[in-house]
């Protein structure tokens, strides 16, 4: 995750790799379920399982709903911003509103085993791979 020091070629290659990965990745396919682009999601592999890390700063835990069904995970909720009364606003960059996004997973998962952790505005979803989907080593007899 750390960026390296000044190497313009590295920056270009990283961009190219990122673009290729986006097209080649089957994580966010052309499924009909996918809607909305908020919140941004990063997906990591950890051992056999997967971890989705979602940035949701300013969203209250109680305004967040997560549903898992077969191999889709739906994240929805709302983000509200309250300015005090009689406040004069100098700068407004943060945005509020509703969001609804569905993540379809290209592997078989254990929907009952999904764990969610929300801390400091970051949601971590631990997605366990179904036992039947894990690679097995086969011994030659």
């Amino acid at each position, binding site marked *: 995750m750390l960026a390296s020091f000044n190497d313009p070629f590295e920056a270009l290659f990283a961009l190219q790799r990122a673009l290729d990965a986006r097209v080649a990745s089957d994580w966010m396919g052309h499924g009909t379920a996918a809607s909305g682009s908020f919140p941004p999601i990063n997906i990591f592999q950890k051992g056999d399982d997967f971890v989705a890390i979602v940035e949701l700063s300013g969203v209250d835990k109680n305004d967040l709903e997560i549903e898992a069904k077969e191999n889709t995970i739906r994240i929805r909720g709302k983000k509200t911003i309250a300015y005090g009364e009689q406040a004069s*606003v100098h700068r407004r960059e943060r945005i509020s509103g509703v969001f609804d996004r569905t993540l379809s997973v290209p592997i078989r998962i254990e929907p009952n085993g999904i764990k969610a952790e929300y801390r400091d505005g*970051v949601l971590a979803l631990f997605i366990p791979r179904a036992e039947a989907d894990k690679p097995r080593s086969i011994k030659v007899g």
Partner: protein
Amino acid sequence: MADAQELQVQQKRELEKKAEATTPARVFVPVTDIFETTQALTVVLEMPGVDRNSIEASVENDVVTIEGRIDFAKYEGMQPVYTEYNVGHYARSFQISNKIDQGKISAEMKDGVVTLVLPKAEQAKQRKIQVS
């Protein structure tokens, strides 16, 4: 929910530093709201993933600086398979025009949002003037 606006992703902007950094980490500019009441100036910054103990705020020469650091240790042993956003530290500073009572600055952190309350110094507070 026809009246509710759908949220859009806000691209992270990288901070333009005056001096070169000694560590090769990325620094982003957090999106910020600033509003003022008669009592105080409030700065609200979004720093998702920053722990409450990793925030530093200071006021010097009428410039308020807020820095938030990410703990990269959480990403150890994880291979990215699909990414939509970058992860890095956050830093931003603002020139403030009002006189601030430096001793009374307070900060609060909730759900990745830092709220910094900068109370105005006594002489800077608004006074009502009676017309005789």
